[in-house]
């Protein structure tokens, strides 16, 4: 039981972390509360489904193309829909919500409401200490860690990353230094969408690919960034680990059906006890 919780908790945490860092990144940099983040996750999965099942592409090119496509889509959403409305946080909230609803309806009309299958990268099952774990879940865990590591290196070690950090700290000063803020926002939105799409492509083989698949990841990502502190990437990773493991422990307990309420209770407690979140500098609300 302990080993199962350890492994499956880690897999959940990795998926949650991939969802949450993108969400918190775009908020931290551009102050965009992006409610279409779950749609990016879903679009990645559907794109992989179309390319593998309809166009019969091999899985790896299909996955890479899906992630790039969603990244471009994310950047386009920022450029054409969010940027004109960025002066009003409420308008941004509404337009990104509209993108999420449009995604759901479009998928429903094109593919129907049935679950769709995306093939797994790894079809083998690994057995250790009596526990059988699908290779795809282990790959998701490893990829999650790799994506987060690469993101850290990208932000800390590259000029581009320094520019992102500069804008997140003081957008005006960064602009005076010659950093093109608008272009950076598009890039960060694309990056955030790409990470969400990666999570979508990796989890699609063992989770669901359905038109409403965007909602739960969106809620989870939102909950995690509130608990971790909006805009804080280390906070999101910490909160993803906390929620991933707590949910798994509850799911293995006799109170299994309460596992989905864990994130909501965590949000309530955070907002009451520490509105800034675990590692947030100030309350976002």
């Amino acid at each position, binding site marked *: *039981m302990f080993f*199962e919780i350890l492994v*499956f908790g880690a897999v*959940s945490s990795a998926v949650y972390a991939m969802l949450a860092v993108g969400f918190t990144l775009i908020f931290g940099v551009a102050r965009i509360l992006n409610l279409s983040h779950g749609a990016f996750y879903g679009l990645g999965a559907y794109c992989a489904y179309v390319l593998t099942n309809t166009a019969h592409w091999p899985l790896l090119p299909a996955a890479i193309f899906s992630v790039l496509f969603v990244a471009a889509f994310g950047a386009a959403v920022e450029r054409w829909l969010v940027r004109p409305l960025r002066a009003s946080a409420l308008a941004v909230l509404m337009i990104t919500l509209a993108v999420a609803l449009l995604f759901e309806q479009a998928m*429903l009309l094109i593919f*129907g*409401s*049935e*679950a*769709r*299958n995306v*093939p*797994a990268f790894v*079809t083998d*099952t690994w*057995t250790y200490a009596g526990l*059988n*774990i*699908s290779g*795809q*879940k282990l790959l998701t865990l490893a990829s999650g860690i790799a994506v987060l590591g690469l993101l850290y290196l990208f932000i800390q070690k590259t000029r581009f990353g320094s520019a992102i950090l500069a804008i997140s700290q003081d957008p005006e000063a960064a602009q005076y230094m010659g950093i093109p803020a608008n272009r950076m926002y598009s890039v960060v939105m694309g990056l955030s969408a790409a990470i969400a799409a990666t999570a979508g492509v990796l989890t699609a*083989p*063992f*989770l*669901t690919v*359905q038109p409403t698949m965007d909602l*739960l990841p969106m809620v989870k990502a939102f909950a995690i960034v509130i608990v971790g502190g909006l805009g804080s990437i280390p906070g999101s990773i910490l909160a993803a680990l906390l929620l991933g493991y707590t949910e*798994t422990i509850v*799911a*293995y307990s006799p109170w*299994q*059906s309460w*596992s*989905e309420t864990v994130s909501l209770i965590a949000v309530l407690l955070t907002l009451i006890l520490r509105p800034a979140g675990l590692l947030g500098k100030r309350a976002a609300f």
Partner: protein
Amino acid sequence: MLRLLSSCAAAALALIGSATLAVAEEKPIVIGADSPIQLQVGRDTVDALQLAIDEINGKGGVLGRKLQLAVEDETMDPQQGVAAIKKLTADEHVDVLIGGYNSGVTLAQEPHIADAKTIYLGIGSASPSITDFVGKNYKRFKYMFRVNPINAVRQADQLTGFVTGKVKGDLGFNTIAIIGENAKWVQDLTPVLKEGVEKGGVKVAVLELFDPDMSDFSPLLAKVKESGAQYLVVILSHANSDVFVKQWYDAKFPLPIGGIDVKSQDPDFFQRIGGKSISETVSLGILAEPLTPKTMPFWNAFVERYKRPPVYTAPGAYDALYLYAEAVERAKTTDPEMVIPELEKTKYQGTQGTYVFDEHHDVLPGPGLINLLYVQWQPDGKRVIVWPKELANGKMILPPWSNQHAEATK
């Protein structure tokens, strides 16, 4: 002159009158399809009805009147379901309603169907509560009939037969686990199933109902594994059984699975989840086997026209329309008050077997009537009937990773 004029007027009136009568006689009989058309079960309902309508119209219609289809999407939402019924009865003035899938939606629609005094032939929902209303208040709810599927409690009886006869009798497994989605029809079914199998000498180690939206089944499977059960009975319809079966396969779960899994009834289920349903055994009403003289002609016509095999609602809808047409022919009218007594006398051999209704207007299962087949997914997506014994056309296999894999039994 006045007499001439008045006789001309009378003749004209008579002409208009007869013309009106002729128009009235030629008015089509409108078949209302209320179905969740975003789902395959819904699309197959509509397509099977259109197939039957075209066949009947090709032979001259019913009482010399053509049949015409009106479709409304009832979705999986009770409110939308009620709106669909209101639209079909109040706006389209349908003569009969054929459809349904989600028992919760059908139960919400029921008072509105009764108020509209329109015959309803259910072909998708399984909760026995739907037809219980006919017994409780016949005068108000006599319009409700269930043609398909066999109701949940009777499905439980048939599933009990599979568990005690095949799982215990042939495979020798004495302990089972039961998991199902937390939905009305499963709440109706599981107590009957548990009682039935325990009477048959099978121990139920664990019985869990889970949220139909659940997507990670690892903890549930862990609980089943720890219970000491040897066979896992699943009861799934609206839940995401694609995900469930994939996770069962990926975990090389030590227990074989079988039971009621509506999505696994889809002919493309094996292929769409990458062959991971291998050895899953599920109940089916129809298969490409000559169950009756009408099975293969229907199956072939459906496949030829729609380029896909039908799911369970299709034979139900197709047979429902034919048995309604026969009842109307016998009653010589579409007046529900006259057609209902004729429907009650139904003994119609359709594509799945012979349809007879009980006093609650619910289709009766049994030898010579409608029966569930237990069909197993085998290598290359082949489907083999493994139960009932007299209809079995192959041997049951265990999961490929099972120690006792290969041939388990006859």
